[in-house]
């Protein structure tokens, strides 16, 4: 299991393996939906080197604005 480089959740899953065996794997974080490939530069894959301006705090996620807002159901 990998740590999400963006929100540092430990719940990430492997969603794909390269068709050519052993080249790379793709991981998905179900908390912040970040997706990355094992072969990407360290500035993407390493939680400590991930660009701080783009880090996500999981506690902020439920407060994100809904775009578009969900309309009232009509009777």
């Amino acid at each position, binding site marked *: 299991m990998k740590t999400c480089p*963006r929100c540092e959740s430990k719940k990430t899953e492997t*969603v*794909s393996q*390269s*068709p*050519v065996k052993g*080249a*790379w794997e*793709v991981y*998905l974080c179900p908390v*912040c*939906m*970040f*997706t*990355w*490939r094992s*072969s*990407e*530069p360290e*500035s*993407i894959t390493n939680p400590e080197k991930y*660009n701080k*301006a*783009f880090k*996500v705090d999981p506690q*902020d*996620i439920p407060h*994100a*604005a*809904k*775009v*578009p807002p*969900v*309309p*009232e*159901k*009509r009777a």
Partner: protein
Amino acid sequence: MAYRDFRDFLKTLENEGQLLNINEEVMPEPDLGSAARAISNLGDKTPALLFNRINGYHNARIAMNVIGSWPNHALMMGLPKNTPLKEQFFEFAKRYGQFPVPVQREETAPFQEVEITDDINLFDILPLFRLNQSDGGFYIDKAVVVSCDVEDPDHFGKQNVGIYRLQVKGKDRLGIQPVPQHDIAIHLRQAEERGENLKVAIALGNEPVITTVAATPLLYDQSEYEMAGAIQGEPYKIVKAKDTDLDLPWGAEVVLEGEIIAGEREFEGPFGEFTGHYSGGRSMPIIKINRVCHRKNPIFEYLYLGMPWTEIDYMMGLNTCVPLYQQLKEAFPNEIVAVNAMYTHGLLAIISTKSRYGGFAKAVGMRALTTPHGLGYCKMVIVVDEDVDPFNLPQVMWALSTKMHAKHDAVIIPDLSVLPLDPGSEPAGITHKMILDATTPTAPETRGHYSQPLDSPLETEKWEKILKVMLNK
């Protein structure tokens, strides 16, 4: 002259020297995004890129920058590749006027060759990759998304074909960004008010005319397929989706069918946008994919977008100018000369017009703000005289620098609507807008010293022709 499909257009680009095959192996990241950014940095006549060997894949091929230059845009319309920009504008406007051209319906399509309904995994089916460094995931960014009006499902014109950013967020899940000013937001609202999912069909790898039209701000009840017929000069070929009554481009490489889940929103982005800034960190709707169809060995297509100019600016340049031009002409048929709204999808627009009397140019600017596209864009409108070519920016700068008086000619209208992606809007979606009147004052407005405009020496036009011939020898 119509292109049969995506491959047919790629073949034409290759024959015209407007396609570069990249046969060396490249990494999905950072090579694909980097190369596509780089090609846009190299001018406005660049070729499309076709990547034939991508690390980790057996035979995936990815095309980028397909409409990313003026020669490729001209070829999209079947014109000679060296057709000047202003000529492309007037030709596009002429064909736009042929709308509607009825569609040609087909029973079967090449994309029906391979069909997947069980254990769909988009990460395995599509060669996905990160485009810009801080994108929150892998995006499909040049597919057309088809949906229909829920209240009036049989109205062909109200069926919408649009391009929306799609984040791949699970094996069979996409995030979609329906900007409120765009038509799919109307369909989604109708469906959610009923508590129903909105059916969608998504086509990837299309010939370039439907892509161009899908990125054109048409009126709500105008059919993109009937406009594509007008632009290509013959009926556009469509075929029905399997799970719905939605119509798809016949030549698509890959088709995804699914539905936007009513009432659901999920964290999305960020994604580097055409504004040259990232946007994201909001919760957006989710599409569940139920069926995937594709050709054998499909060719995939993506576009690079970032700080202008990039492919997206060519893709939504002239096709943004023309609807504004037509709608302004409806109001002022004898005055409007040309419209250049190519900057950041028309956030800035330049209008060339005759002035009937003092104050007229400002009225033209106000009208631009109230066109359908102006409601979400046209944050700055520059109005110039009829003899200033709005596509010739040095001429526009000349008009601004000599015809404008800030006291009289800068008009600011507070708190108007704009698309929320505008990074300057505050709150997102609200901004002041500005009209800069750079036309010559006309009576009864008599200020300034404009009575002695400089005219060219008598034989200038003749000499222009002579010299052009000599230079081309």
